[in-house]
């Protein structure tokens, strides 16, 4: 008996130890992850859940509550505000003249189809994949690129009334697209020069170029106000020269769409040089040597070799500017004026500003959040490529 017990005892002890160690491990894992996850649950997911509730009438803004109780209206599920927001639809202008009316859902379907085509094109069809991708990209960008010369081939018609939030949203998209495209156009040569043109202390120059991004965003807007403001450098130079009356400064310099686009691109260019630079660094110079040996010009080599290799970095760079710019709020409210009013400001004014209607504001917030999440998820491949590069 006693002998058997001593023989049997060790395995049990070991097992118990292993078991308790597993429990300890699991407890420790929970102890490690719970704080961060709880924080995000309570202060990130729950708030967004409540905004959704506001947007579908399950919660009411306190100030409306008094009025609601007077009329006997109780909070209840209603899509009324969503309908109000989406019903106006859009007018697409073709060649600056003919306008085509589009209900919001048609536009939504087309938009999703184009994003899918642009991201997964090559997977859809072996032969036409490249074409599908190119066409989708072009159709996605074209309506939203303001070309300085004026009439666009295709664009969403301008705002008709104050409360037309859907068109305001598309104006914000237009502004974000324009500044993102220009930011990429400026960042690419800089990244190219840093990657291939500088031999010595490349990384110090990279730091010099990126450093401004790390200083305060507000202060960089502030600096532009000093140059472009009503009492700013540019205007006071005009006053000095007698070209302009001090009571009548050139105010489009500071309060306009142009300034918002300029400041946004100024703010983001330093940042997106990095993903493009890193993508360019992966280009094997032997490929280019082979190409030139076989008689390709430098331009051909750039187009056929360098650009395709750098493409994911370029797309990531575009998205890094575009995604935060759609919901931009600070820049347009400091330098936008009426012409540069953006969707993010409309949201803010529903919550703390003049309009003050939390329910409408919630509809706008959830719409913006949905669009941004859809874009981020469908392009996560590029974002991860660029994001992995930046960290």
């Amino acid at each position, binding site marked *: 008996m006693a002998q058997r017990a001593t023989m049997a005892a060790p395995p049990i002890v070991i097992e118990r130890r292993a078991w308790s160690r597993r429990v300890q491990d699991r407890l420790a894992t929970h102890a490690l992850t719970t704080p961060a996850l709880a924080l995000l649950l309570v202060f990130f997911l729950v708030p967004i859940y409540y905004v959704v509730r506001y947007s579908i009438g399950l919660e009411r803004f306190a100030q409306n509550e008094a009025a609601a109780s007077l009329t006997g209206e109780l909070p209840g599920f209603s899509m009324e505000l969503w309908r109000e927001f989406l019903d106006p639809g859009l007018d697409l202008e073709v060649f600056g003249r003919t306008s085509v009316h589009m209900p919001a859902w048609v536009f939504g379907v087309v938009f999703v189809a184009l994003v899918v085509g642009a991201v997964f094109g090559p997977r859809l069809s072996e032969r036409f994949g490249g074409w599908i991708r190119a066409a989708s990209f072009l159709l996605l960008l074209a309506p939203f690129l303001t070309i300085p010369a004026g009439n666009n081939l295709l664009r969403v018609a301008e705002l008709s009334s104050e409360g037309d939030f859907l068109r305001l949203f598309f104006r914000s998209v237009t502004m974000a697209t324009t500044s993102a495209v220009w930011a990429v156009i400026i960042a690419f040569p800089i990244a190219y020069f840093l990657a291939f043109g500088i031999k010595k202390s490349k990384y110090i120059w990279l730091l010099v170029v990126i450093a401004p991004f790390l200083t305060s965003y507000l202060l960089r807007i502030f600096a532009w106000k000093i140059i472009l403001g009503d009492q700013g450098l540019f205007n006071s130079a005009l006053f000095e020269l007698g070209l302009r009356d001090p009571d009548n400064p050139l105010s489009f310099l500071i309060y306009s769409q142009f300034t918002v686009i300029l400041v946004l691109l100024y703010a983001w260019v330093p940042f997106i040089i990095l993903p493009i630079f890193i993508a360019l660094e992966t280009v094997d110079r032997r490929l280019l040597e082979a190409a030139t040996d076989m008689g390709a010009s430098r331009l051909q080599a750039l187009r056929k070799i360098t650009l395709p290799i750098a493409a994911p970095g370029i797309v990531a760079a575009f998205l890094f500017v575009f995604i935060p710019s759609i*919901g931009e709020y600070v820049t347009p409210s400091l330098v936008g004026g009426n012409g540069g009013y953006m969707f993010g400001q409309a949201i803010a004014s529903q919550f703390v500003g003049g309009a003050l209607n939390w329910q409408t504001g919630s509809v706008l917030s959830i719409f913006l959040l949905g669009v941004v999440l859809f874009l981020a998820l469908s392009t996560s491949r590029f974002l991860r490529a660029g994001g992995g590069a930046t960290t």
Partner: protein
Amino acid sequence: MSRGSTDVFMSRNGKRMLVLFFAGFLVFLYLPTILLIIFSFNASTVIAFPLSGFTTAFYEAAWQNTEIKGSLIASLKVAAGTAVVATVLAVLVSYALARRSLRFKAAVSALLLLPLVVPTVVLGVSLLVLFRPSDPIVPIPLGLWAVLIGHVVIALPFCVLLLLPRVASIDNRLEEAAHDLGASGLTTFRRVVLPLILPALLASLMVAFVISIDEVVVASFLVQDQTTYPVYLYSGLRLSGQTSLLMPVATVMIVASTILILAAALISRYGERRAGLAR
């Protein structure tokens, strides 16, 4: 490279153009800030050339201004709090993600990174809804604590992105060896893991601090009587054309953040060298 080889990336003229473009870009990038610094010392409230003389009067006036001082102190407190809380949370969760078998690992890391793509306006209004003054969902009053919470949510993904690769790169055997030699989990963490991630930890603290001290959108929805400095600057820029008092503080902050960036660059370089030694 042999002497006769030509540059396959750019012709000589192309290179000249790129140099010019690069120089122009640097001017475009730095000129606004340099002008801001110059005019903070200008002895006139009118921003125009020629400069009317050197003065530090605005610096003194800004230093005397209690509103500016109060908002700066509030910002420093919130930023310090954000840095510590976000970094501690990020260290814990990175350690779990890198070391432990975790169910729903993909979902957890997606959730951790999600605040990166959510527009800050949406984040701000949703926190305002959460702390709404009448019948709050979570009974925390609006004010600096609320701002701190918002900033931790914003900074957390950045801290995780900084810390996770570093934690994951630590050789598992180091910890096993410590364990076999009888060190407890806590001792292992303190004596083995912590020294190895120290550079990333400092970088995380710094990044969270910088994010918080510059954050205006979420803060503008959540502040009450005591504003933070970015909110003060924001409303000052929005409401008044009078910027003389704002420029000195802006200059000080630009200089301070430049020093911080250089320090961070040096630290991360040191960290790389150290990681190289550890391997």
